[in-house]
């Protein structure tokens, strides 16, 4: 069975383990997700399933989105995401947090918080310039980005200031410490990318 869910980050808290140690825990409201489409090698060239999450008022969706879900009379779902899997699943299958058990490890994928246009120190960990020796206005400067007369230009992709955050980030190998089937909650040990309320995808850990 595919181990994947779409969810919403609720926030962080502290929980105690059996030994009484406090753990930092991120809560995720995950599922129920429905299989909205199945992709197979014959038709699409690869196998995957599309999952939908988040029931909404049908007025919130466009006609095209509703039509896509209407084929199998699924509830109106706001978010659709694809998961690569070779497992046999049918359109309409319901996935819940019961897929996961306490102690298992998962990868959580989200969109990190946007930081805006940031300097090279914050964005790439550059050291900045010297503080003393008569230097002025150089403390957070990136310094030289390229070589000399040869090549006479800065190579593309050189690190420098620019937009930071709001990109896809994966937190790998987080341990599940809580599964609440009643409230569709999963608690993982550690932090998860994105703001509270942000959309996250939970998958079985790639590196076990």
């Amino acid at each position, binding site marked *: 069975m595919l181990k994947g869910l779409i969810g919403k980050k609720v926030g962080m808290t502290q929980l105690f383990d059996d*030994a009484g140690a406090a753990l930092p825990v991120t809560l995720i409201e995950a599922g129920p997700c429905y299989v909205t489409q199945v992709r197979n090698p014959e038709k699409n060239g690869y196998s995957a399933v599309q999952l939908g999450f988040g029931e909404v008022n049908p007025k919130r969706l466009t006609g095209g989105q509703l039509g896509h879900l209407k084929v199998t009379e699924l509830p109106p779902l706001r978010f659709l995401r694809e998961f690569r899997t070779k497992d046999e699943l049918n359109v309409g299958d319901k996935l819940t947090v019961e897929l996961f058990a306490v102690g298992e490890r998962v990868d959580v994928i989200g969109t990190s918080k946007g930081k805006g246009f940031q300097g090279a120190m914050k964005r790439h960990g550059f050291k900045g310039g010297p503080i003393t020796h008569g230097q002025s206005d150089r403390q957070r400067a990136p310094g030289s980005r390229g070589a000399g007369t040869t090549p006479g230009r800065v190579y593309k992709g050189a690190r420098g200031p620019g937009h930071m955050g709001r990109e896809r980030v994966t937190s790998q190998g987080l341990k599940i410490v809580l599964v609440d089937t009643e409230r569709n909650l999963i608690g993982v040990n550690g932090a998860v990318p994105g703001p509270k309320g942000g959309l996250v995808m939970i998958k079985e850990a790639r590196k076990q």
Partner: protein
Amino acid sequence: MTDLLKAVEAEVNPNIPELRPGDTVSVHVRIKEGDRERIQEFKGVVIRKRNSGNNANFTVRRTASNGIGVERTFLMRSPRIDKVVVERHSHVRRAQLYFMRERTGKSARLKQKFD
């Protein structure tokens, strides 16, 4: 949203009475040594309390041998705390008693408050 966070909170430890800054307390902590469990006592003055629901904590300061100050912060809901005994209340005019860190010996005394 916050309701979901509240739903998984740890239970309140019933063996911790209401604490106030300046209280002299004895914290009984469960300590696991291999497969044996014993209780260690940590006695000192509550110099700070942080009320934040599930993550609430308090800090106890005591003076160890040679006048070296030792501070330890406990989580209010930690299952590791066996019990807390309040031995006396003190008259203090601040919520955080950080000034105690600069004081030793006679000047580190607090006036007892009876109620």
